[in-house]
């Protein structure tokens, strides 16, 4: 039976690319976030899953706080907040934690955050350990196609390939999974803002700091 109900955290690796790194995007013109700078913006996620009569579409806002974590706050169709750090992933809905995945229990999550950090800090070498990268650019911007180097590794086994396009920031990420499902992510209204994180952001990250 091929069915594997274990979470495939490697698939979440796609999420790392939401880190929206200008560095990955333009290795030649690295423009890393400096410590204390926070990247905020809006996102639209459309999941095209076989067997569903319409894409699962959600929208919301996100904040990337380097060295601390990524806060993914969906507002439509309902409010959920996902916080990703090296310690794990927590999902909150209606003010309550509905899921908490400890990095210690879920292989690869800390790795996921590291990749995210690497991307932010301009360490493309780390990404190239897991993916082969082909890049191209045109007048509108640039494109990257990432293909897992080791399709059998649990960390990346569910990813067929990733396509990233952008200009100053990452604007579009398409995650094509081995099963044929596709997640399309669009980023809007992005801006780097000086820190510190807001009280709310701190509170969400703080749940992981002990």
């Amino acid at each position, binding site marked *: 039976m091929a*069915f*594997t109900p274990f979470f495939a955290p490697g698939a979440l690796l796609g999420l790392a690319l939401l880190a929206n790194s200008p560095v990955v995007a333009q290795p030649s013109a690295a423009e890393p976030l400096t410590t204390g700078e926070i990247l905020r913006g809006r996102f639209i996620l459309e999941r095209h899953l076989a067997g569903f009569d319409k894409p699962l579409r959600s929208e919301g806002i996100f904040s990337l706080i380097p060295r601390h974590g990524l806060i993914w706050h969906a507002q439509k169709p309902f409010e959920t907040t996902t916080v990703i750090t090296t310690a794990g992933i927590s999902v909150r809905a209606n003010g309550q934690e509905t*899921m908490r995945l400890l990095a*210690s*229990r*879920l292989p690869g999550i800390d790795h996921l955050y590291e990749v995210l950090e690497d991307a932010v800090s301009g360490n493309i070498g780390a990404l190239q350990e897991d993916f082969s990268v082909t890049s191209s650019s045109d007048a509108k911007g640039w494109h990257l196609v990432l293909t897992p180097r080791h399709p059998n590794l649990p*960390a990346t086994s569910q990813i067929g390939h990733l396509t990233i396009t952008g200009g100053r920031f990452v604007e579009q990420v398409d995650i094509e999974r081995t099963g044929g499902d596709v*997640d399309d992510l669009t980023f809007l209204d992005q801006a780097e803002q000086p820190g510190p994180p807001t009280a709310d952001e701190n509170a969400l990250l703080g749940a992981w700091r002990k």
Partner: protein
Amino acid sequence: MKRAGAWLWLAAVALAATWLLMRLSAGISLQSNILALLPPTERDAVAQNIQDRIAATYSRRVVFLVGDYDAGKARGAARQFGEALVHSGFVSAITSMIDRDSARRISAAYYPYRMGLLAPADRDRLLANRGAALVSRAMSILYEPGGLADAKLVAHDPFFLLPAFLLALPLPQSHFAPDNGMLSAREGNETYVLVSADLAGDPYAIGFQTQFGTFVSKTFAALRAHTPGLDVLRTGAVFYAREAADEAMREISVIGVVSLAATLALILLVFHGLRPIVLGFLAIAVGVLCAVVGTVLAFGQIHVVALLFGVSLIGISVDYCLQYFCEYFDPAALDPAARLRRVIPGVALGLATTLIGYCTLLLAPFPGLRQVAVFSLVGLAASFLTVALWYPALDGKQAPRSGSRFVALAAQHWLLWQKPALRLARLAIAAACVAAAFAGLLAFRVDDNVRHLESLSPDLRRQQSEIERLTGTSSDTQFLLVRGKDEQDLLHTEETTLLRLAGLRNRHALGGFTATSQFVPSIVRQIQNRELVRTRLLAPDLAGYLAQIGYRGKIYYPAPRQFLEPDNLPRTGPFSFLSILAVPGGRNPAHIVLLRDVTNPVAVERAVENIGGVRLVSLTDEWSKLFSEYRGYAIGLLAISAALMYPILGWRYGWRGGLRVMAPPLIAVALAPLFAALVGVAFTFFNAMALVLVLSIGVDYSVFCRETYGTRKPVTMLAIVLAASSTILSFGMLAFSRVFAVHAFGMTMLIGIFLAFLFAPLAGDGEDGVRTDVAP
């Protein structure tokens, strides 16, 4: 007649030597497990069996952490090391290997029964009628980027309850996560990769320890040559045992050599000749040879502790030789036969009482101590036979140069107790003893903690605590023993128990627990769960949920006729430890529930006490309890051996005379533990056993003092001085041992023997007129 006896004895010794040589070439197994000294005393046979199994399982496990700043190098080295382990044949299984298929096999095993499997938190939500929380969780997972959920998963597990169940499983090694097929964890900048294995051999067999230890050092040395920064942590009973055995061996050589050298020097100094050394050595060598043969014949192996005490036997068997040699200085004893005739009554009586002392050791149901007893009994008897049968033939007529200086010196000890002018000194000694005894009484404490018997090596301790910190595991040996009619009954009892344990965990009485029923709920529980899912989740929420997410496919979420049972689960990879939890047994199946970080054992005990078939077992506490029981037992042995000696002494000296002979060693036995307390030595089982020896050796001194008369007194005293000195030299050395038990034993011997010697002249006939000027 005498000649025939000597020849017969020679034949017997030659036979023993030949046999030992043959055995040695076949390899004698040397045991070093200190707990092998302990008896199997658990009254509850099933519990004992389980404890043995768990102890054996734990003791065979070895854990390594291979660390490097470069994760790839750490993984590479760990992989190479793992492969070398497999090829070496030293291990029966590598338990840290991630079988890429194991996750799939595990989910495949659970998958058909998924409807009845609920994570504890999910079950609580349904019980509280809060199914809506599960619906919104499912929605958020679906809308989440990252791709856990797809149509296939929705169809087969619409609310993703099986992944939640799997994530909630209390799998061990929680800080380590699979990474490229190996379990690893990051600590700062360093990556540690776990390599754990089960040994194929006995970790307490010294041969195996040595081979395995050499293999490990060599392999890592080779890996370091390639990866210089490699950081290796290791733990396992085999390393502790090897360290302890090495330490014991080092001490045996040091103590053995020093005590032998000091004893020889003493003899040389007093007798000015090699003959007593050669003859003394002969008696000792024959004694040790026969002791080893007797012990191996009786037990099939020798315990390191038995050997350690056996080496100290030198200090005692030489006593008999000394009695004989000191007769050189008595001009009335003209030839070897005359000398022997004079000392035989005292030596035989001394031997009889000493043997009684060792016989009581034999009564103790401690396998290790029985070895000590057999070793000593056989060794002493053989030494005695050597003195009695061979000395007349081997010793020459001519006595060596006189040691009158020493005889005169020894005579002073008589005077201390007999000279009227020294009354004040005697009173002062008595007063000092009483005062010190009172002070010792205040400092006196008993200590039965078995942990003191274990590790010596701070370095191994450090590595172990480092491994425990990094892996998040602990070496706790506390667990619940659950017994029931059958497997389902057991699982059901466990579930009742776990409910209470969860309450205790919330109150921080314990850190966590691992039980079979967490992996395989009872059938009763599975029926309940299915019912909960059906009535509180599927019936009210499924249709609306599917409409909202726009899923129009089929749902296949069945409740099959069968239920998940323990045998359905694989026992490999991450689930290999499940086999530890189940204790197979015909009519009495049992499970254990492993407890972690128990801070309040009393609360745990109270929580489970009225659940039938469940009880708390703590291995270290049980062992400590045993030591306390056997400390009391040793005191009993002391009383028994005193009671057994008294009739022999009473028969020879009359009832009052017997008491008088017993008094000096009894005073020594009473005072030694108090004096030891003054220097900070707690009273343990080992001190109590030392007292048994103090009594039997001390009685020898008293007997020698009582047997001697008139002009022979100073000569006898010289022999006693030499005997006590050599005993103190050998056992006194034990007081410097770093092995807790040996140190406690040695300290008690040191003090006790000195006191027995000090008071021994009190047993004499009391007649004055000691000559101090023995003519050559």
